[in-house]
C-alpha cells in the first residue's frame, strides 16, 4: 500500500525551536504560568548565587577584615588560608604526604574496580579488602618502619570523613551479610536475633548511637581497658550501617529465584558453598545500587561525629569559623558552602555511578 498523499512539511509552529517551546513550555495557560514562575525562580536563585559567590565576593585578603565590608559576598581567602586544615585537620604538616599516598593507593584500587569491563576483579578485590586497609592503617597511624606515630586526635577534616565512611562501610559489609542471611534463616533464634538487632538499630538515631560510643561504651569494657575515641565511633558507625546494609542485601536475596537455591542443594553443596558461590554473588550484584545508596547515606552521616568532638570536614570548618582572625559575617556562610560543595561532589558522583550500574543491570536483564 503506497501513500498517495503528497508529503507535506509539518506546520512551522510544531517543529524547531518554536515548536519545542510550545510543546514543552507553553502547551496550556497553566503551563505558561508555571514556566513564567519557573523562570522567575531560576533568575532569583542564580542571580543571588552569582552575586554572592562571584560579583560581591572577596578574593584577596590576609584576614577577616577584608571580608567585613557592607554587603560582602563569599570570603574566598578564608578557604584558601584554611584549605590544608580542612583536608588534613591537624595532621602534622611534614607527614601529610602519607595521607596523599593513601589516597593514591585507594584510587589505584578503586578506579579499576568501578569500571565493569576492567579485568582482574578478583585480584583487585583482594587488594582492596586485604592489602589496602593494612597499608592505609600503617601509613596513616604510623609507629612502624620509622614512620612517626600520629595519634588519631590529630586526624581531621576530609581525611576523617573519608576514614569514617569507608571503614564504616567495610566493617558493615560482613556483618550486614550475616544479618541478612540470619534474617532469612530457618532457625528461629537466629532469625529473631537478627531481626531484633536490625530493627533496634534502625529505630534509633545515629546520634544516640554515637553518644553511646562516647559516654557509655567505655563502661562496657573491663577495668583498665580503653578504646581510642575515633575507633569507638568507627565501631558504632559500622554497626549502624550494618543494619541498613542487611536490609538492602535481604532485598537482593529475595530476588534470587528459588531454583537457584534448590539447584545448589541438589548438587549437594554445603550452606557456605551455596551462599558463597551461588546465591550471594548474584544477590550482591543485584543490590549494588542499594549498597552505593547506603554508602552515600553513611558518607553524609559521618558529619554527625562532630557532635561528639571528632573533627571531620564539617567539624573543622565550624571550628575555624570561630578563629577571631578570620571572623566576618561572610566567613561562616563561605565555610558551609565550601563544605557543602565537597560533600555534594562526592555524593552526586556516587549517585551517578549507582545510576550507571542500575542501567547496566537493567540492560543485562533484558538480554
Amino acid at each position, binding site marked *: 500500500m503506497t501513500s498517495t498523499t503528497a508529503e507535506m512539511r509539518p506546520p512551522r509552529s510544531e517543529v524547531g525551536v518554536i515548536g519545542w517551546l510550545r510543546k514543552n513550555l507553553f502547551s496550556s495557560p497553566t503551563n505558561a504560568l508555571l514556566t513564567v514562575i519557573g523562570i522567575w525562580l531560576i533568575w532569583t536563585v542564580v542571580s543571588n548565587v552569582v552575586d554572592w559567590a562571584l560579583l560581591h565576593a572577596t578574593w584577596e585578603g590576609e584576614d577577616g577584615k577584608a571580608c567585613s565590608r557592607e554587603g560582602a559576598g563569599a570570603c574566598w581567602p578564608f578557604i584558601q588560608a584554611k584549605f590544608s586544615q580542612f583536608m588534613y585537620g591537624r595532621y602534622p604538616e611534614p607527614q601529610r604526604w602519607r595521607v596523599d599516598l593513601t589516597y593514591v593507593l585507594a584510587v589505584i584500587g578503586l578506579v579499576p574496580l568501578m569500571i565493569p569491563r576492567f579485568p582482574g576483579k578478583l585480584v583487585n578485590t583482594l587488594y582492596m579488602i586485604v592489602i589496602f586497609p593494612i597499608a592505609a592503617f600503617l601509613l596513616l597511624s604510623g609507629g612502624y618502619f620509622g614512620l612517626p606515630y600520629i595519634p588519631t586526635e590529630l586526624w581531621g577534616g576530609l581525611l576523617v570523613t573519608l576514614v569514617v565512611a569507608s571503614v564504616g562501610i567495610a566493617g558493615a559489609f560482613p556483618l550486614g551479610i550475616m544479618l541478612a542471611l540470619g534474617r532469612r534463616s530457618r532457625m528461629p533464634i537466629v532469625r529473631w536475633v537478627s531481626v531484633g538487632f536490625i530493627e533496634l538499630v534502625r529505630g534509633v538515631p545515629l546520634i544516640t548511637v554515637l553518644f553511646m560510643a562516647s559516654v557509655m561504651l567505655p563502661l562496657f569494657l573491663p577495668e*583498665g581497658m580503653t578504646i581510642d575515641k575515633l575507633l569507638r565511633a568507627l565501631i558504632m558507625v559500622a554497626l549502624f550501617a550494618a543494619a541498613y546494609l542487611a536490609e538492602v542485601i535481604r532485598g537482593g536475596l529475595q530476588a534470587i529465584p528459588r531454583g537457584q537455591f534448590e539447584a545448589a542443594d541438589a548438587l549437594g553443596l554445603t550452606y557456605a558453598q551455596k551462599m558463597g558461590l551461588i546465591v550471594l554473588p548474584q544477590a550482591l550484584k543485584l543490590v549494588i545500587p542499594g549498597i552505593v545508596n547506603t554508602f552515600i547515606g553513611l558518607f553524609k552521616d559521618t558529619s554527625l561525629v562532630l557532635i561528639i568532638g571528632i573533627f571531620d570536614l564539617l567539624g573543622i570548618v565550624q571550628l575555624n569559623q570561630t578563629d577571631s582572625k578570620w571572623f566576618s559575617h561572610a566567613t561562616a556562610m563561605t565555610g558551609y558552602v565550601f563544605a557543602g560543595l565537597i560533600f555534594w561532589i562526592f555524593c552526586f558522583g556516587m549517585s551517578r555511578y549507582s545510576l550507571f550500574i542500575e542501567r547496566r543491570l537493567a540492560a543485562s536483564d533484558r538480554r
Partner: protein
Amino acid sequence: MKPATKLLAAAAAVLVGTAGAASAQTLDKVKKQGNLSCGVNVGLAGFSAPDDKGNWTGLDADYCRAVAAAVLGDATKVRFVPTTAKERFTALQSGEIDVLIRNTTWTLGRDSSLGLSFVGTNYYDGQGMMVKKSLGVKSATELSGATVCVQTGTTTELNLADYFRVNKLDYKPVVFEKADETLTAYQAGRCDVYTTDASGLYAQRLQLQNPDEHIVLPEIISKEPLGPSVRQGDSQWFTIVRWVHFALLNAEEAGITKANVDQMLNSTNPDIRRILGKEGEFGKGIGLGSDWAYQIIKQVGNYGEIFDKNVGAGSRINIARGQNNLWSKGGLQYAPPIR
C-alpha cells in the same frame, strides 16, 4: 596469613590501650606507657586550645605538662585527649585518660556521685555575664526578660537558673552543645547575654569581631573553683597530681622560676633546697624521683609564669591575678609546705 595476624595484633595494641588496672596503679601505667593521657577541653583559649599545628596551649595544657614532667621527667610526653563537656567524666572513669584537667568546677555532687576526686583548684573562677554595650545594661539585675546563651552540661546552666530565680527575673535560655556554637549564636544576636565562667568570657570576648562592643557585667553569680580531677580510689596518684599543683605554687612563692631554677639548685635556703630535692626524700615518698619539682619548674615554669603566659598579663586575654594570686599577695592560692 601470619604477617597479617601480627599486624592485626599490632593495630589492636595501638588502638586499644590496654591500660593496667585503673585503681591504685595509674602511676605504674603512666610510667609503663611512657606518656600521660590528659583530658582537656576541645578548645578554650587560655586554658587548652590547639594551634594550627596541633600544639596544645593554655593553663590546663601546661598543668598536663607539669604532671608529665614530674612523673616521666619529660614535659612533652603528654597525649592530649580533647573531651566534650558530656564525655569528660566517662573518659576519666573508664581510664581513657589518667587525669582530667579541663576547666571543671569542683562540686560536692561530682565528688560524690561521679567517681572522681578533685585534687585542688588551679583557677578560682566565678560565673559572669557578657552583654552588648549598645543595650545600655550596667548590672545583671536589669536583665529581666533577657535571652541567655549558655553551654549545656555545665554548672553554669544551673547557676543561671538559680540566679534568675533568686532575683525573681524572667529569662529564656538557649542551650548549645559546644562553646563555639554558643558564642556564634550570641554574636549573631540570638541572645542578649552570654554567660560562662568569667575567665572564659574574657578569653572568648577576644574571639568576637569587635571585643570593645561587649562588656562583662560586674556581677559574679557563683563560685567556680576549677581544678584537675582523678579517679577515686587511687590515693597515690591523687597525691601526686595534688602535689604537682602545690609544687607550682610553692615554687612561685619561693621565687623559683624557669629561668633561675638552675642557679637555685645552689641556694642555701632550706625551703628552696627541699622543693628542688636537694634536701629530704620527698619525691620518693610519693613515688617519684627526687628532682620531680625541679623538672616541673625547669620545663614548664612556676604557677605565676604559667598563669601570665596563658591568661595573665603576658597573654592577649590579660586577666588580672585577683583571687588567683598567692595568699601572700592577697589571693586565695595557698599551698601546704614541702617538708
